């Protein structure tokens, strides 16, 4: 999927994460987390895996994590990506790349 315009999803509330995606070259990830020392690597892995599954090759991704579970991070990344190419309104590939 191609990131066409900036979009974000999620909140800064506890147990959530705010994910912003913008057009970019290659994957450029900037992560802030309240549990960086404990789970920083795991969060990074989840974000990158989700982007790969959605076939996003070029994006500037900012994640501000407030202790979100993996499933939440996944959902926020998916939502931000879909919003960035206006696919959130329809054509969501339930059961396809979204699983």
């Amino acid at each position, binding site marked *: 999927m191609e990131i066409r315009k900036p979009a974000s999803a999620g909140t*800064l509330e506890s147990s959530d994460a705010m994910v912003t995606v*913008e057009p970019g070259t290659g994957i450029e990830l900037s992560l*802030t987390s309240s549990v960086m020392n404990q789970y920083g690597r795991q969060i990074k892995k989840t974000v990158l895996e989700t982007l790969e599954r959605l076939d996003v090759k070029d994006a500037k991704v900012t994640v501000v994590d407030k202790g979100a579970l993996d499933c939440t991070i996944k959902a926020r990344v998916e939502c931000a990506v879909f919003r960035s190419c206006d696919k959130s309104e329809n054509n969501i590939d339930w059961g396809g790349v979204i699983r």
Partner: protein
Amino acid sequence: MYITQISPRDSRAMKQVEALLARTGLTLDGHLDYTCGVFDEDENLVATGSAFGVTLRCFAVDPDHQGEGLLNQVITHLVEMQTRRGNLHLFVYTKPASAKFFRDLGFYPIAEVPGLLTFLENRRTGFSDYLKSLSASGGAGEAGETAAIVMNANPFTLGHRWLIETAARESRTVHLFVLSEDYGPIPASVRLRLVRDGVADLPNVVVHETGPYLISRATFPGYFLKSEEKILRTQAQLDTALFVQIAKTLGITVRCVGHEPHSLVTALYNDVLSEALPAHGIRCRIIRRLHTADDRVISASTVRQAIHDGCLDSVADMLPETTLSFFRSPEATPIIAAIRAESDVVHY
């Protein structure tokens, strides 16, 4: 509890915003273009935050509700609003004591005036990327005196030209920074273009945009500082801290400013610069201002006033050909109309 936008016309809610700010020792900033608040079940305001352009400001959380994550909700709301506006690169000016809350929310400190002010942005490498873009734009690393000038050029006059020429004669390279912020009737793009046109014949002058890092005095958020003078000094100190970083990147050894006989504010700014810069190995050189043949001081505010009063010809001797012909061209018509519509064109 719920969070909602507060219209500036909603006087009941705005009174609550002012009261809440007052309880935490703040006042409502004069420059806001969006305000939101969190209300409890009884419609009492318990947290608030506002925005102006790409800056977030005027945050307060009811002391009885601190530790409930209300600031997070407020920032989330404001960031979403800014995303809808297309603003992803955001800035916060706050007390150093509050900076940690913003650091937890994805903001990174750019510069600090100890004890008074921390300036943050939500890009980890925002300022360092800006510095890189500056050194890529040329002129860096050469031997000899390298000068810098920062100006509004609102609009570009012969006074600016004189300052630049003087610096250019004495230095190998002059880095000329034009404030990028859009405010007032003359758009930033026009200010920048008139500067570029006006110095095109000076080969050793490199024109830069300040980007979002140096902002105009007019929109500097000083609502958390006690007095007008403190606000001015603090802004000057913050500018100095940012400028020193820029100077290091470009090898700048002297900062040239125009002598200011009339405006106390600018004189104070120059004072702070000349006190602070030498500690960083940068000289501060104050250059005498240029007068017209009939001994009037050339100033951009005089020019704006003349345009406002519809007598551009009376200041023709203050303007270089490039600026003058722009304001006589049809392209300037909407800008002139905007200047004429302002009630006060002197104080920006």
